């Protein structure tokens, strides 16, 4: 039950960023600072398109935790099935 809730919620929060990304960002320019600085004007044509790189990075950052959670789920299911099986065999009593 808990697992179902967790999975549903994680899947739900995957839909929201897709919706958010569909909106276009608009921010007023900020004053310059050390290190990261907000852009003053929109940059002209770039050599490498940044969008596919950003999307690839986000896909990776989502995919890897999902795959890991799935692998834990699978292993946990296997172990719990085995525990149930062994407990049953112990309860069945010694037959030597």
């Amino acid at each position, binding site marked *: 039950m*808990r697992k179902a*809730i*967790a999975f549903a*919620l*994680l899947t*739900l*929060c995957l839909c*929201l*960023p897709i919706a*958010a*990304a569909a*909106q276009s*960002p608009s*921010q007023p*320019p*900020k004053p*310059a*600072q*050390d*290190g*990261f*600085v*907000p*852009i*003053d004007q*929109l*940059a002209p044509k*770039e050599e*490498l398109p*940044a*969008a596919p*790189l*950003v999307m*690839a*990075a*986000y896909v*990776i*950052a989502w995919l*890897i*935790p999902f795959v*890991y*959670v799935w692998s*834990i789920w699978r*292993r*946990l299911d296997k*172990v*719990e099935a*085995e*525990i149930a099986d*062994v*407990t049953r*065999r*112990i309860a069945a009593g*010694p037959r030597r």
Partner: protein
Amino acid sequence: MAKLFTPAVVLIAALFAIAPVLIVGAPYESTMGLVQKIFYFHFPSWMAMFAAVFVSGVASVVFLATGRKGADALAVASAELVVVFGLIGLLTGPLWGIKAWGVWWSWDPRGTSALVLWLVFQSYLLLRRFGGPGSERLAAAVALFGMCNVPFVYWSVNLWRTLHPKTTVVSSLPVSMGLPLWLSTFAFLGLLLLLLSLRTRLETSRTRLDALYLALED
């Protein structure tokens, strides 16, 4: 503790849902433009990885000193998470780097130190998998050495190379960039805790199973 699980999942899911909205709303960085937005996932995954390194190292010390199985379960769980979060960081870094600096891998101090640390904990997992019985204590020693090595690795790699933004960047971020960053960081740290509890549960279940098999023998 188990009762906190569902609310924790809800909270972390909410953080992960809000973060992209804030990230999309954050202003573009002047020199790097859109690709800098990778930072909002790249930095938090490194934070999560380092947190996992210290959890694993400390749990290993406790295990070596006291022999408690719970400590060992936590150590192996966080070692796996070092590898998982480290992988996210190692893959998103080059995607940012190729655009921002023109190279996939630039041997900069932080990235290289992180790679070395990732390798240490990957070797921890290899030892546990292929070392046969009794490798838990040995692996704990590896985790301890890995954790204590962090300053040395960084010191040596830093002295060897100087590209990564200076450490002062994060503290001087404007609020519009700081907020999504710290939110993402909390989301990732929360995810780390969730995954830790799940993975530790798997480990303790395995221990219970082993005990049951032994009881079956009798």
